[in-house]
């Protein structure tokens, strides 16, 4: 049986176990004079049986699915010892591919090396064996579990406590998925980065001024080494983000101030959701807009002033990114501005200050920590934004601070290095993970710092 069918089977058995357990508790309760003489409600006895029936079986199934293929593969690979035996990783992958294709009947058997044929047969045998063993084990396990859970049902058995304990563990497990995700990110990025830094020194990577990740296929090719100096990428990222902030901060902040302090309720009720539409538009749409509408427009505009603006300028990508970030800044700023106590406004106005003076000299200083942290969050978002720059910014790494020229960013390079099928051990792909590590670290620091400020600020007024 395949995994889906086993899953359905276990589920069905679990439901069956629920009704069995419940029926047994009801049968026990009847001569006693009703279910109030039981320790727990009948459904808890049912759940108890069902948990015993399904949970161990599901755990086994999960482990089996994870370790099944690697185990079979290593046994099969070990069986190949003759002329076909694999030396390095690449030929190992090739060999395993060949064997599994022969075993699945995709490749014809005639004319193959007998060793490969034997390995393929071994693989087929092992796979059949594994499937049968799995089915048998799961069935035994769930039926034993069912019997055990069912047999424990009695008048004094504390089924509710047991069930609730298990459920709490399950809930805790779900909450820990977040930790596992973080761990997964850190491990995957760190692991590959360390491998990368073995071939390219970390100092050259962080401070190198030249980025051309093309490694040569032949030894004698020009520029065969490939250089991995990431400074042009960092500069490009900062340049695009700076342009974005230049657009987003004034517009976002001013609209937040206007909406919070000046606008009538009616204006607020339509302008706020309308601005928030910008936050819901997918980034790929912004990318298309930047590449096909804004960039040509800026190029033509520049030409009419006698400036040469690249059609992949940082200006176009950054400007559109800024538009994307406007609602982010405005809603964060709106929150902190409305959180400033009314008494501070009243005090300032009572002293004869105009409304704008109140905003500038009282409210903004009071809300400053929150605004700053909002801007920091926005910067971290701009740095990590991918689709807009992939579509509208350049590929070539130019070390320049001129926003009218084409620059490339960290995220663009990650995408270009990793799209498509690639070898996993070339420095070119590993470089993407090193860039990912940089990106993750910087955004994480920005976020932690920003959240810290918000936390401190909140305590101040609450």
């Amino acid at each position, binding site marked *: 049986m395949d995994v889906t069918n086993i899953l359905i089977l276990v589920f069905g058995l679990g439901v069956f176990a629920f009704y069995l357990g419940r029926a047994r508790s009801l049968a026990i309760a009847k001569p006693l004079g009703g279910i109030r003489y039981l320790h727990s409600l009948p459904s808890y006895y049912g759940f108890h049986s069902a948990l015993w029936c399904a949970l161990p079986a599901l755990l086994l199934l999960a482990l089996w699915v994870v370790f099944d293929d690697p185990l079979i593969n290593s046994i099969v690979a070990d069986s190949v010892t003759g002329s076909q035996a694999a030396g390095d990783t690449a030929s190992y992958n090739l060999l395993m591919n060949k064997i599994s294709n022969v075993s699945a009947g995709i490749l014809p058997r005639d004319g193959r090396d007998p060793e490969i044929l034997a390995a393929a047969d071994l693989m087929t045998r092992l796979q059949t064996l594994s499937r049968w063993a799995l089915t048998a084990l799961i069935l035994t396990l769930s039926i034993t579990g069912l019997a055990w859970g069912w047999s424990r049902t009695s008048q004094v058995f504390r089924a509710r406590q047991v069930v609730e304990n298990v459920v709490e563990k399950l809930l805790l497990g779900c909450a820990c998925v977040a930790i596992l995700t973080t761990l997964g*990110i850190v491990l995957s990025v760190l692991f590959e980065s360390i491998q990368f830094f073995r071939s390219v020194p970390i100092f050259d990577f962080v401070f190198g001024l030249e980025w051309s990740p093309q490694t040569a296929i032949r030894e004698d090719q020009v520029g065969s080494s490939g250089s991995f100096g990431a400074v042009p990428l960092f500069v490009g990222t900062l340049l695009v983000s700076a342009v974005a902030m230049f657009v987003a901060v004034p517009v976002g902040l001013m609209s937040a101030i206007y909406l919070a302090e000046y606008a009538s309720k009616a204006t607020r009720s339509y302008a706020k959701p309308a*601005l928030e539409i910008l936050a819901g538009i997918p980034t790929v749409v912004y990318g298309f807009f930047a590449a096909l509408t804004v960039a040509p427009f800026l190029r033509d505009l520049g030409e009419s002033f006698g400036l040469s603006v690249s059609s992949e300028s940082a200006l176009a990508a950054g400007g559109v990114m800024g538009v994307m970030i406007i609602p982010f800044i405005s809603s964060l700023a709106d929150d902190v501005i409305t959180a400033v106590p009314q008494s501070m406004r009243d005090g300032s106005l009572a002293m004869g200050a105009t409304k704008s003076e109140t905003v500038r000299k009282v409210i903004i200083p009071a809300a400053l920590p929150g605004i700053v942290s909002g801007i920091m969050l926005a910067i971290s978002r701009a*740095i990590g934004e991918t*689709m807009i720059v992939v579509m509208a910014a350049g590929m070539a790494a130019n070390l320049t601070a001129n926003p009218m020229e084409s620059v490339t960013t960290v995220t663009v390079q990650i995408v270009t290095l990793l799209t498509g099928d690639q070898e996993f051990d070339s420095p070119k792909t590993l470089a993407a993970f090193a860039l990912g590590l940089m990106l993750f670290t910087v955004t994480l620091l920005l976020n932690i710092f920003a959240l810290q400020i918000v936390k401190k600020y909140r305590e101040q007024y609450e």
Partner: protein
Amino acid sequence: MNNSMTNLEKIRKSLSRRNRAEGLFRWAGRVAIFLGLMAVVVLFVDIIGKGHGAFRIAYIELDIDYDPEKIGIENLSDPQQLAGADWQALPKAALNKQFPGVTSRGDKRSLYGLISNGAGYDLKDRLMANPLLLGDQERVWILTDDDIDTYYKSWLAGEPYAARLTDKQVEWIAELHEQGKIRLQFNANFFTRGDSREPEQAGIRGALMGSLFTLALTLILSFPVGVAAAIYLEEFAPKNGWTDFIEVNINNLAAVPSIIFGLLGLAIFINFFHVPRSVPIVGGLVLTLMTLPTIIISSRAAIKSVPPSIREAALGMGASKYQMVLHHVLPLAMPGMLTGAIIGMAQALGESAPLLMIGMVAFIVDIPGGFSDPATVLPVQIFLWADSPERAFIEKTSAAIMVLLSFLIVMNASAVWLRKRLERRW
């Protein structure tokens, strides 16, 4: 006294300047709002202006003669003959009949360039659906080539774009137009077909199905896990370091750039667990991890908004903590949780960066039929088309964006509706 008078004068003098500053400040706010709203309007007008044309496409009316000899086929049930048949010969012959004056090779080539090179296969499908047509004649609207379609639309709009057409082709189209033999029809292919290198044959069905499978998996995985995590953190978690650690993790994950999740998927799911590339399973897993923080955070807010009196009443009546949560808190918090889930799904539907990492950018013609078929998703399809050099793909891309945006609008509107309709104020 004298001193205070001068102060008053000072204030009076400065008053006009201060009022002017006040007015300027107010205007700056208005301009900012206006700029933001303008961005929304410009974006939508630009996309709709570019994309609305793609929902109609030019067809040419031709007299098709299903001559068995021309196709090179006698028996429609013989697969070998079907594979070897020259279907494109059918519309070519019809074009020759329509324009008998065309004789030179170059002219003939540009004549055949009028129609899509998939036109023959459309006729094949027609013939297979109705085998009696073999040997018969029929008047059929034939799909045009994308360059012809682009030109015809621009010509109808009064600004002909003939850069990729020969002069002869321009003449022929004018002639066909006079005879009423070329017209724009609803572009059904756009909604029923998968991707194609030929713009006129490309459709979004494959990407839509891919998005559907990916999102279904995301919802199935992220909603139960997210709600369970939220319940634990709000109702059961003890106040200790471990709980704090979980919370810090969730908050940080919500702000991690989406592309990092792509790296995670590539390194863990594909490289370590050997899940195949380009399939909705791995896409759904990555998007699950990405949307989980959103769902947890909004679910927690929904649980928090249930007043404590409900909990106390349930506990007071002798319910256990789980009964209290399951029977009272959860049903009351459900609308808020569903709203959060819809918003999370809308986010996942528009996401493309992490999917680029895990190979969902492949050029896939077949429409996926399950979770383990190679697929792409709608935003990635948009990305792929935006990269294509053909002019006709600009129109297609904008139209696909319109479809994507309408899905997002429907999802967000239903979230708002759900919140208004079901959420209780206490």
